[in-house]
């Protein structure tokens, strides 16, 4: 028995020794810049996790094949170490530790979702590892004073306030009555805060303010209230579940509301799953392929979408586009810093001011991108029942005119 114990402790000591010494290869090996990322490849975020990973991979291949990153007169190529965080914040934080302290990664890419980014940010901050993230939009990420966190996307509170402003504008500048239902998670609650701000700014009144549970699949009660109180705008945010449930029940219960604004329509494949019932829904999006931003690597949104479709076999959701943009930001920062020193790269990231196919990127002191407005698209269907998302706001990029108010169900 004692011998067994001795052997066991010997072996575990050996394992510990090996794991600490062998794995520590550094961030830049030969001509490779190694980035680390914990991504949700399994668990509840796995579909968006895969979109994120595809976006990263697409950009890595593109940048490498177009000359790589030039630092100090030498050309480097990107490489990414991925770990599966199982959609679990605790696991994500552990993996970030592991990437940094065991794998020796000195630059990180973000995970999918605000919750996981929140879990990782304290770790990267502790080690002074610059992280460019593309999928954590929660406002609370940018108010903690993080110095090494940079987000290429617009914060969550800006997702739908455009909708409220548009509604007020269409109402002749007069305040509107708002009904809202938000899931109780960091992201949706931030979207809600944005609506509250917009309501206060425009003097609008919130007449229904419901919260939705995580295991939401029935929001009939909210919709019955909407039917009775007849608001001017109905705002729903509850990830893909919220979008799908809302459209199904609005159609079934024939709820008439002049404007319906939501998040996650494209992730939920609304128009595919619901067809004509999803018509006229307004959706907030970080990106749309019809936007006319340009860069040297992906040219523009349309080209990006076509290339992405060729490689992965589906139309890129904005989650993929913003993930690709994160790599462009890193490349730009490395070249401007002309060094792999983490502090210098961090400062270069903070001074980023560039245009990518995804949008303009310029970071506020909190780390959020302040140079890229959200876009709103509306689901529009033709007589044959095939539906398309068309950008309707901001007007600069609008490819179609907003249909307002939404026709009543009895007239459709």
């Amino acid at each position: 028995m004692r011998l067994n114990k001795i052997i066991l402790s010997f072996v575990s000591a050996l394992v510990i020794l090996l794991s600490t010494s062998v794995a520590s290869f550094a961030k830049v090996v030969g001509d490779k810049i190694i980035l680390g990322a914990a991504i949700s490849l399994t668990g509840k975020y796995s579909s968006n996790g895969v979109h994120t990973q595809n976006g990263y991979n697409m950009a890595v291949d593109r940048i490498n094949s177009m000359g790589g990153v030039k630092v100090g007169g030498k050309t480097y190529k990107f490489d990414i170490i991925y770990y599966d965080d199982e959609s679990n914040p605790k696991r994500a934080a552990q993996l970030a530790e592991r990437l940094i302290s065991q794998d020796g990664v000195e630059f990180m890419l973000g995970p999918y979702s605000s919750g996981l980014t929140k879990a990782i940010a304290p770790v990267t901050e502790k080690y002074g590892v610059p992280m460019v993230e593309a999928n954590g939009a929660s406002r609370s990420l940018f108010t903690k004073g993080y110095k090494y966190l940079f987000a290429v996307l617009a914060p969550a509170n800006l997702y739908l306030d455009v909708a409220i402003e548009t509604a007020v504008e269409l109402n002749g500048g007069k305040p509107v009555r708002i009904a809202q239902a938000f899931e109780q998670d960091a992201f949706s609650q931030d979207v809600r805060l944005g609506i509250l701000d917009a309501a206060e700014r425009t003097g609008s009144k919130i007449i229904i303010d419901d919260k939705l549970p995580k295991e939401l699949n029935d929001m009939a009660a909210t919709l019955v209230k909407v039917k009775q109180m007849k608001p001017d705008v109905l705002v729903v945010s509850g990830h893909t579940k919220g979008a799908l449930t809302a459209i199904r029940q609005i159609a079934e219960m024939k709820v008439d509301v002049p404007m319906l604004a939501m998040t996650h329509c494209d992730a939920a494949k609304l128009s595919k799953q619901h067809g004509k019932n999803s018509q006229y829904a307004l959706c907030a999006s970080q990106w749309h392929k019809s936007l006319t931003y340009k860069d040297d690597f992906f040219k523009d949104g349309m080209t990006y979408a076509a290339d992405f479709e060729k490689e992965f076999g589906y139309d890129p959701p904005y989650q993929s586009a913003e993930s690709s943009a994160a790599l462009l930001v890193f490349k730009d920062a490395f070249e401007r810093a002309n060094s792999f020193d983490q502090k210098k790269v961090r400062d270069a990231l903070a001074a980023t001011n560039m245009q990518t196919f995804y949008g303009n990127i310029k970071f506020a002191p909190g780390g959020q991108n302040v140079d890229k407005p959200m876009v709103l698209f509306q689901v529009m269907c033709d007589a044959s029942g095939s539906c398309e998302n068309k950008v309707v706001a901001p007007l600069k990029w609008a490819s179609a005119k907003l249909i307002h108010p939404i026709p009543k169900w009895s007239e459709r």
Partner: protein
Amino acid sequence: MDFLVFQYPMITLQACLDGILLGVLFALIAYGMALQWGVMNIINIAQGDLVILGGYIAYFMYLYGIHPAWGVIVAPVIMYFVGIAIYKLVINKVVDRDLFISILATFGISILFMQLMNFAFGADVVLANSGYGTTMLFDNNVVLPNSKIFSAFISIVFAICLVIYMKKSKLGRAIRATAQNARAAKILGVDTEKVYAATFGINAALCGVAGALISITFTIHPYMGLPYTIRSFMIVIVAGLGNLPGVAMSGMGLGVFEEFADYILGTEFRIGSVFLLLVLILVYRRFKLSRKREYLK
């Protein structure tokens, strides 16, 4: 707190009708749970996951252009065999152990199913469209989606069929005999092993029907099973085992309770209120039980 629901009689009516239609569906799932609980003394934590799996069967039929309503025929057939397979692989090893072991085992099955479904079908929320339209009552003030009416109707049909089957068929009688006294049944020539397998299969089939109906009425997602397990557990606790009218009544009661909790406390407390009710009922039953014991002394 919001008492809108009591200010407009139409909303009260709407909440009641919604709750009853929903409750009938819950009762179907709960009946399956009561059946296997009564016969095998197993509390199946994976009940909700079997429901979701049934939902995916209907969803895939819908994807391939078959009307998802046919799922209520196809899903139970497939799920029956899934149930038998689970029984042969896991449940028969824990069936005569104490309740705790079976809870652990089915908890494991539940986790496995969630992950497998996530792996196989993806983490996207999906639904099947029936295109059934809506019934409007009372000058359009009360709306009932026909899909909900359809699912309640199908649930009732299946429940009735099952009751008749239990009463009339040989297997049904064997199941009831085993539930009353497994040892005696065995002595009298009932192959209890077979009865257990069939019971688990029938339960899985009921879950399949319910899942197909849920994919038509609501949404499905690999991780959405647990609330259905909790609800059926709760219904069985209230109704007791082997009490079908009780299951139906407490199912509908729970449905209505949930709807009212939704209106009054807000949607965020909907599932929470079910949990709270479960705790209250368990405490109450324990209280009642302890009084009885004292009386016996």
